[in-house]
């Protein structure tokens, strides 16, 4: 890097842009239904008036912040602001009920910080080779990756029939709409709104936010509001986190690798890392009852995806996710042409952006570490105020996605279903995994079939054409064995 660029980087404006972006991102992430993509599209027009490097860094900050922000509400009131914070709710909320909200929040922010740093460093130092690696993932490879995601469901708690029902229900939801390959309508019942499909956001809002609020209504203990919140020193958590070095490393690596893959999304990374934490834990039976290891794994993974998701965008101009696609659009409006020529043509913008992303991690750590005292004030709010607030925000979030009342309707229906599902012990996480992975599995399988036919190969011949496919297939098998073994252990400890 040219030294004169350092001058561009270390300016108050750059840090301020990163800080403002992260702050907006945390707020947007914490609000149910507003995820990074929404936050970035809301702020996008404002950045057009800013110098390009600052505007883009602001958007990058939102991206980073929202990956963390969701965990705050997830831990405190069991309402993940975004699906990537679902494991934080699964582990963090039980801790809150035990009076350890701050502990959970500190684990979350420090893990996010480390994951975020790893992802950004990987982006800074390994963008060209990793971008080439990401290109190796064709339909066959993506098919195996998404298949491995489905297997993870087995590692989450819940009886096998109930989990299976949940994931199949998710897959069913994902089939609604115009089929991407043949263009035929499926389960649309002639309804125009259903043709563009059911988006994952209202489903998440329904299952996690609305359903949770509906269940809270019937819970006596929460009416008074406020769990006792034990104080804990930041240092204590930081030292304790050192004992989880391997977990942090694995979470960060899983997040980084899955973040690279176009179209896969963070949900898979988060649950994969969570599963690995559960597998390697000495106390897998305490998962979903308040185990910090689950928080460490999930939160390091989701922030690690931020840096790596930007890799294909910077190196090839290929946006791998809705969020990065919007950032790509912003770059184009600012006259920045993405791809290999970026670093030659506009080094000022490119370098300030990629190194500035480190500032976003710093800003996130500062806001998180010093804000936790204030975040936990949420616990003192009476449930009578929380429930309507979350419900209104959820409906607003569902509407904001496509400005569609139909999505609000979907969120409400899924919310009521979700509350019923809770009653009978059907877990929500597998439903989300089904909704997210269904389209991935389907399109990649049907693309594989068409390409195989064009190349006069049989489907298996095409699927196992590359070495990478074999490796990924191996991972699928290994995961399957791990899940079966985990199930056996779970059954043994329960029995």
């Amino acid at each position, binding site marked *: 890097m040219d030294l004169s660029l350092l001058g561009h980087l270390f300016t108050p404006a750059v840090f301020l842009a990163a800080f403002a972006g992260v702050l907006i991102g945390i707020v947007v992430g914490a609000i149910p239904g507003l995820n990074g993509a929404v936050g*970035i*599209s809301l702020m*996008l*027009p404002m950045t*057009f008036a800013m110098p390009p490097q600052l505007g883009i860094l602001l958007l990058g900050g939102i991206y980073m912040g929202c990956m963390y922000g969701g965990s705050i509400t997830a831990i405190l009131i069991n309402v993940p602001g975004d699906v990537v914070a679902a494991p934080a709710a699964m582990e963090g909320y039980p801790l809150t009920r035990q009076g350890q909200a701050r502990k959970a929040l500190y684990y979350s922010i420090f893990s996010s910080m480390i994951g975020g740093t790893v992802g950004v460093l990987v982006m800074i130092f390994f963008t060209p080779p990793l971008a080439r690696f*990401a*290109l*190796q*993932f*064709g*339909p066959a490879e993506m098919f195996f990756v998404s298949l491995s995601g489905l297997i993870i469901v087995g590692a989450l708690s819940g009886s096998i029939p109930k989990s299976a029902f949940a994931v199949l229900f998710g897959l069913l939801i994902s089939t609604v709409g*115009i089929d*991407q*390959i043949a*263009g035929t309508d499926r389960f649309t019942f002639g309804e*125009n*709104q259903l*043709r*563009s499909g059911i988006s994952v956001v209202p489903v998440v809002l329904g299952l996690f936010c609305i359903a949770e609020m509906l269940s809270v209504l019937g819970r006596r203990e929460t009416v008074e509001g406020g769990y006792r919140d034990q104080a804990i020193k930041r240092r204590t958590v930081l030292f304790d986190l050192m004992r989880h070095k391997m977990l942090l490393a694995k979470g960060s690596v899983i997040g980084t690798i899955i973040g690279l893959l*176009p*179209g896969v999304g963070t949900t898979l990374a988060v649950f994969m890392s969570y599963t690995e934490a559960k597998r390697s834990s000495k106390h897998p039976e305490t998962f979903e009852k308040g185990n910090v290891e689950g928080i460490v794994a999930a939160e390091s993974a989701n922030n690690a995806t931020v840096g790596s998701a930007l890799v*294909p965008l910077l190196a*090839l*101009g*290929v*946006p*791998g996710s*809705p969020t990065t*696609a*919007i*950032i*790509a*659009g*912003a770059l*184009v*409006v*600012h*006259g920045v*042409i*993405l*791809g*290999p*020529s970026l670093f030659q043509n506009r080094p000022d913008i490119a370098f300030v952006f990629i190194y500035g992303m480190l500032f976003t991690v710093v800003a996130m750590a500062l806001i998180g570490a010093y804000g936790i005292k204030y975040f936990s004030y949420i616990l003192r709010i009476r449930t009578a105020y929380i429930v309507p607030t979350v419900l209104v925000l959820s409906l607003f979030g569902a509407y904001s996605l*496509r*400005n*569609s009342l139909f999505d609000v309707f979907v969120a409400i229906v899924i919310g009521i279903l979700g509350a019923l599902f809770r009653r009978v012990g059907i877990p929500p996480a597998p439903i989300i995994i089904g909704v997210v992975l269904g389209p991935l599995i389907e*399109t990649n399988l049907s*693309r594989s079939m*068409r*390409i195989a*036919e*064009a*190349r*006069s190969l049989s489907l298996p011949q095409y699927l196992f054409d590359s070495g990478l496919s074999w490796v990924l297939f191996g991972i699928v098998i290994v995961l399957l064995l791990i899940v079966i073994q985990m199930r056996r252990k779970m059954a043994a400890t329960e029995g």
Partner: protein
Amino acid sequence: MKRTLALSLITPLAFTATGVLAESNYPNQDITIIVPYSAGGSGDTVSRIIADPLSDELGVDVNVVNRPGAGGEVGITEMANADPDGYTVGVFGYPDNFVVENTRDVDFNSDDDLEFLAQFDSTPMGIFAKPNAAYDDLDSLREYASDNPNALVIGESGALGLLSALAFESNLDVELTEIRYDGGGDLMNAILGEHIDLASTSSMSHDPIVDGGGTPIAFAAAERMDMFPDVPTMKELGVDQVMEVGRVMVVPTGVPDEVRDTLTDALDAISTNEEMIDTFLEADLPYNYLGYDDINEKVETSNKQFQEVIDNNADQF
């Protein structure tokens, strides 16, 4: 402030009976541009670039709202059903409307429901070959494809990508296997990773594809583009195919003539705004303004050409 409030309360009452007066007042409230795509895409970019100068010209705020879904169908339907008062306009990439209404059962009909006001830019479709392909120009591609029918896989995203691919096949008299991608990013990943052989996408993808080692075969443009003088047009190579995405502004049918004229005059006036044109070019959008008469003429001739491709490939739609 108080006076404005009072006025805005009285205005509708006072002028309900004399509608003409109310219109001569146009515009006296914010104008909304509906974009049937999500934020960040080219259609969205175009509407955001024109929103500011248009707002300056008309003296009211111009807001962009995104109504993505079903290949533009959701947003275009909303445009068609909007009140024809000139306060709701639409910006989208023609011929998305035409493709959608001719390939599915939809709740709008462009001929009856939409009035075209202007075109801002036009981006031709093109055919690109993957890196390390055995063909790098139209002739070698044609030869390879004739020798190996259906063996070459062509990726496309969006209905126009498919139309362009199908027209290309019938014009060259070859058969390819088409595969649909959800977005330009996915498609680019597939061609640069050599998972597919050809891509049917717009000239916007030229730089990333060429940087990644791919080759542009030809553009379906009326003339060579200033941005890419080295890429031949299909016409030059003896293939009569012109297919361009034109970002157009429309209003729902039924807008009073005075209101429409105010809008088209404002669009004509900003069409020479240097700063705006620069923003278009910086965003890699080939600026190509067509006023009211020109765009309506273009739409008519283009529709015929697209209809032919759709009719010849009824099974694909």
